């Protein structure tokens, strides 16, 4: 069937296939390709011996070089820690206040804090700490719910707010408007008064003022200045944590008095190392007028 011919022009034989007078040359593979191919085959035999390759019945061949990707990683992490140790040891030893005072250490911590913030904190608090209206507090301002000193921020980041961690910040606002504590009119009067607190002229002497005095000052303080230890936000400014975009400030207050919402934040101690948490602390403190 096949008739192999010698092609004079190329010096090669044909495969013997012919279609309408067109014949196919049987050109051999280039020499360099064949050599590389066989070199790879020989290399692979060496690789079997040197590296972990073959499965056995209950284990696998470890290879003479004893390579392990996880052991390599452990080595990498050790050398990375060494490379950073000049700063890490200082960060671990220093208090957050000391870090803030030492200019070179502070610069290092701010740079590291920014990166850690992007990965861990910005999901809720937004890039650069702008927060989410009606949900998560803005960090880029000088209003702090649980305190804005370095020590306060450090504590909050380590243990979080209202989570399972035993050290986490805890407090609960009572649902004044749902039970028989305050009726609808009283809630309305109270909301009017709370709203007036953030203006220059609080409506002293109004019915709402009396309710506020009786029910709210224990946590939110006289004149609604807030109490950091209880996480009771200041009410004498125009910063509202749980006011949605579409509702008025007054509606937001009514909602919170009727059916209080409570923010929660995870504890980061354990997930992040101590040095990273300190870097985050000074970074967050730097965002917008930490106290």
């Amino acid at each position, binding site marked *: 069937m096949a008739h192999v011919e010698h092609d004079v022009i190329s010096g090669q034989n044909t495969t013997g296939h012919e279609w309408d007078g067109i014949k196919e040359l049987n050109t051999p593979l280039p020499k360099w390709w064949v050599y590389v191919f066989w070199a790879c085959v020989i290399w692979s035999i060496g690789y079997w011996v040197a590296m972990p390759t073959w499965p*056995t019945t209950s284990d696998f061949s470890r290879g003479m070089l004893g390579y392990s990707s996880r052991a390599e*990683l452990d080595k990498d992490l050790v050398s*990375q820690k060494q490379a950073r140790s000049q700063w890490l040891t200082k960060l671990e030893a220093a208090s957050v206040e000391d870090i803030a005072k030492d200019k070179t250490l502070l610069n290092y911590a701010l740079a590291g804090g920014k990166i850690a913030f992007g990965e861990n904190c910005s999901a809720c608090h937004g890039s650069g700490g702008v927060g989410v209206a009606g949900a998560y507090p803005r960090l880029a301002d000088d209003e702090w719910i649980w305190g804005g000193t370095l020590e306060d921020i450090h504590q909050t980041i380590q243990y979080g707010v209202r989570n399972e961690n035993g050290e986490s910040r805890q407090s609960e606002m009572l649902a004044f408007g749902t039970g028989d504590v305050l009726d609808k009119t009283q809630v309305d009067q109270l909301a009017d008064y709370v709203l007036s607190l953030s203006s220059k002229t609080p409506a002293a002497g109004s019915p709402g003022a009396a309710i506020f005095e009786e029910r709210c000052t224990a946590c939110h303080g006289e004149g609604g200045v807030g109490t950091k230890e209880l996480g009771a936000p200041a009410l004498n400014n125009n910063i509202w944590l749980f006011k949605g975009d579409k509702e008025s400030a007054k509606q937001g207050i009514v909602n919170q008095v009727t059916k209080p919402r409570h923010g929660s934040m995870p504890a980061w101690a354990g997930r992040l190392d101590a040095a990273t948490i300190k870097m985050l602390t000074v970074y967050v403190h730097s965002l917008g007028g930490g106290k």
Partner: protein
Amino acid sequence: MSVFKHHAKLETNVFLLAVGILLTVITGGLVEIVPLFTIESTIEKVEGVRPYTPLELAGRNIYVREGCYLCHSQMVRPFKDEVERYGHYSLAAESKYDHPFQWGSKRTGPDLARVGSKYTNDWHTRHLVNPRDVVPESVMPGYPHLMRPLSFNDAAAHLKTLRIVNVPYTDDQIANAKADLAEQVKSDASEAFLARYPGARVGDFDGDPSKLTEMDAVVAYLQILGTMVDFTAVKPESIRR
């Protein structure tokens, strides 16, 4: 060379070629796959990995249904940069009860292998309803339909099916599957439930305690991811491969 002449015979005979291919694939399978059934070191011996609770499992099924794996991997690889960003590299043991595993191969979004406990339930719910509400630059689609009620009459059947592929669900767990699913969203979940599923997060997950929704299930699942193994108690040498 005579060997290549035989090769021509193989290539020009469809039947011989099919047999040849079959033999090659079988050999490859025997060498590469079968040993995994007997190699004891494939799955690291670590404490803490338990089968999913019925609610977490329902969430996992929704995760698969919605194709989350198309954009999110669940595999922190043993590289310095990944470990620094996501946490400890993933172990085979951590997905030993996953059928099918959700390691994935594409990261349009971040890896989720260690997302459990990283954010609050509230954040997950908001983010799933409309990611741009919390992360303005996000390209993830919203899943507001997850706020619909979860249908879970088949809770026990899912556990039973997984037991066929060696997930060690007990008779007790299967018998109580449906009740346990509803129990997990109660903040005062029973001791019996917690004994069956140690370390399970309980309480409302989606911010609406009046309804048991698909969101409850998905968030319960996300919050357990990568949290079962306590790595402070694991010796690095014991899991090196």
